[in-house]
């Protein structure tokens, strides 16, 4: 068997894992911006994945990077965690 030709530094595009596994998600809940004006910019520092940005145009979550940990929603107003999966009754 031949060794595969791989990059020296294991690397990929940001969010590559999410795209590679686009049939799946590691989130159970997703943060949804309910009142952008109320989002405290400090969440950009609290988010462990740099997945949320807050600027003049408001707050935005990059769902390719967001792990759904819920820290942003816990730390700030204007964000709500909603179930990612709303399938068969009784699951959520």
């Amino acid at each position, binding site marked *: 068997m031949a060794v595969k030709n791989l990059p*020296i530094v*294991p690397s990929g595009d940001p969010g590559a*894992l999410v795209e*590679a596994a686009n049939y799946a998600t590691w989130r159970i809940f997703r943060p949804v911006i309910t009142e952008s004006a109320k989002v405290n910019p400090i969440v950009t520092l609290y988010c462990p994945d740099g997945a949320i940005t807050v600027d003049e145009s408001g707050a935005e979550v990059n769902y390719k990077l967001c792990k759904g940990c819920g820290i942003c929603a816990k730390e700030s107003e204007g964000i709500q965690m909603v179930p990612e999966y709303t399938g068969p009754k009784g699951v959520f």
Partner: protein
Amino acid sequence: MNKVLITGSEAAALGAKLAKIEVLGYYPITPAFPAMERLSKYIEDGELNCKFIRVESDHSALASVLGGSLAGARSYTVTNSQGLLLMTEVVYHAAGLRQPIVMGVANRALSAPHSRFPEHGDAVSQGATGWIQLFSENNQDVLDNTIQAFRVAEELRTPVMVNYEGYLQSHTLEEVFVPDQGKVDAFLPLKRMPALDVTNPRGVNTVAGPDVYTDYKYIQNAAMEQALELIPKVAADYNREFGANSCGLIEGYMMDDAEHAIVAMGSIVGTARLLVDELRKQGKKIGLVKVKTWRPFPAQAVNQILKNVKYVTVLDKNIVFGVGGALATDIKANLYGQGSMVINGAILGLGGGKCGVKEIKEAVDHTESSENKNRSEWIGL
């Protein structure tokens, strides 16, 4: 080439300065700290153009150095014992991401019980991480190994630890020959290999599935095997350029007709030389093998130099619990099927315990008289 009287810490710092490191990440720990102090003074005095990143833990120290390296900067740090253990996760990252980081390790015993004294347990705990590990017999070795480490690391894209023992080396003054800056610049041309690019952001250490993970590890291991060829070449270049006397993988001392060989690494090599000289005067055919490169393990070189001996005494300033000394284990594994010599491991000098000429003599006598061949003996209990 000028001659100075410096400690091992100063030799490490001087080596990093001569290599013109650009990023230094550091968290204070004893006995590694004087190397950092000296480097920070070089930076403060304008003698070294380097970004000194002060962090809140050793884990972050190596992480910051990893970031520097990924951005293409020549990066360095120094730590020991508990700090090295705390770094361990990033130690693996650096190797897997193929970053040419050089790290000084002022070897100190590990807790518990707490100890501030020298031994190799910290380095040995990192023996499977994919870092090249060099050991230093004296302060000259610390300087020479540090400069050579950058060359090896950058050619192979594999990180290198330069081990020197806490206090015995980090805080002890010795005469050291210092190479000229101009010649070091020529010896270590800076080849930038940035993995990060702000105009084209990518993630490093992305997930590798079962289809490629084995391949990544195979390629990483192949670089370690190449190191066995590169390290002696780099040492030979270094000796030629600087008129130095630095060994590559191993060095044999009085080994030509030796029937009994002592094998050791680190500061105890110097002590063992004294014993060999003394026993040679009494007519005993004894020699010494200094292992400078412990990872990758120089199996062929060791087998070659030990092929005609009857007795091998391996000195280990470390203990792998339930197994024995790490170096003895490697020697035994690699000499398997190579003859019928007696190989005895001696565990000594743990946590600053005695490991002088008397203790090494005891180990040597034990090898020749032992009823229990091929096992680990504890000296100095």
